[in-house]
């Protein structure tokens, strides 16, 4: 399967700061997702994105979060004012069909 990269691999930030996590598919895909995984816990759905719009978002995805596909190849997750509990691995996923999801390697976010 084609590879997805996520940058940065590890982000350390202070509480209250804004972070932008990036997902870079190597070619155009149709469906995008963000998930998070708190250490030792299950993978939690955040948001799905199709046709440059949010399709679905979870209760975790509050006003602090936003997603964007600014230039057609990057897919970003912004957290406006980070909290300690935002510390987690953040995975983007993508697919060319609605029933298809391939995951990136993740970004580890540490909020201090």
């Amino acid at each position, binding site marked *: 399967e084609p590879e997805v990269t996520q940058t940065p691999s590890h982000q350390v930030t202070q509480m209250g700061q804004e972070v932008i996590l990036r997902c870079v598919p190597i070619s155009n895909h149709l*469906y995008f*997702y963000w*998930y998070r995984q708190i250490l030792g*816990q*299950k*993978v*939690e*759905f955040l948001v*799905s994105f199709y046709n440059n719009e949010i*399709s*679905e978002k*979870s209760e975790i995805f509050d006003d602090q979060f936003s997603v964007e596909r600014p230039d057609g190849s990057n897919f970003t997750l912004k957290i406006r004012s980070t909290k300690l509990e935002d510390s987690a691995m953040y*995975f983007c*996923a993508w697919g060319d069909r*609605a*029933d298809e*999801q*391939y*995951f*990136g*390697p*993740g970004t580890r976010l540490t909020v201090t």
Partner: protein
Amino acid sequence: GESVGLHLPTLSVQEGDNSIINCAYSNSASDYFIWYKQESGKGPQFIIDIRSNMDKRQGQRVTVLLNKTVKHLSLQIAATQPGDSAVYFCAETDDNFNKFYFGSGTKLNVKP
């Protein structure tokens, strides 16, 4: 809300034996189920999927069984190898495919 959960948090098997990992789900409207494998420090990796109109699907060394009557999903791994050691998650979604719910994971330890 919907929930997906796993019966056993850890499973230890001898190399060469067969493994069975179980998953229970609560949303009878779920239409599509996926098993993922997650190795340490990596994103979830797709293993096999099954739709609600099927009760069994086979892949290479893996079989997924779906029992809609009791809302139960299982992953069978034949001739388990050390490389199969990982955490296994089941995930479910409805026919909109907009939101995927993950179970809490089962850690598979393969003993040489």
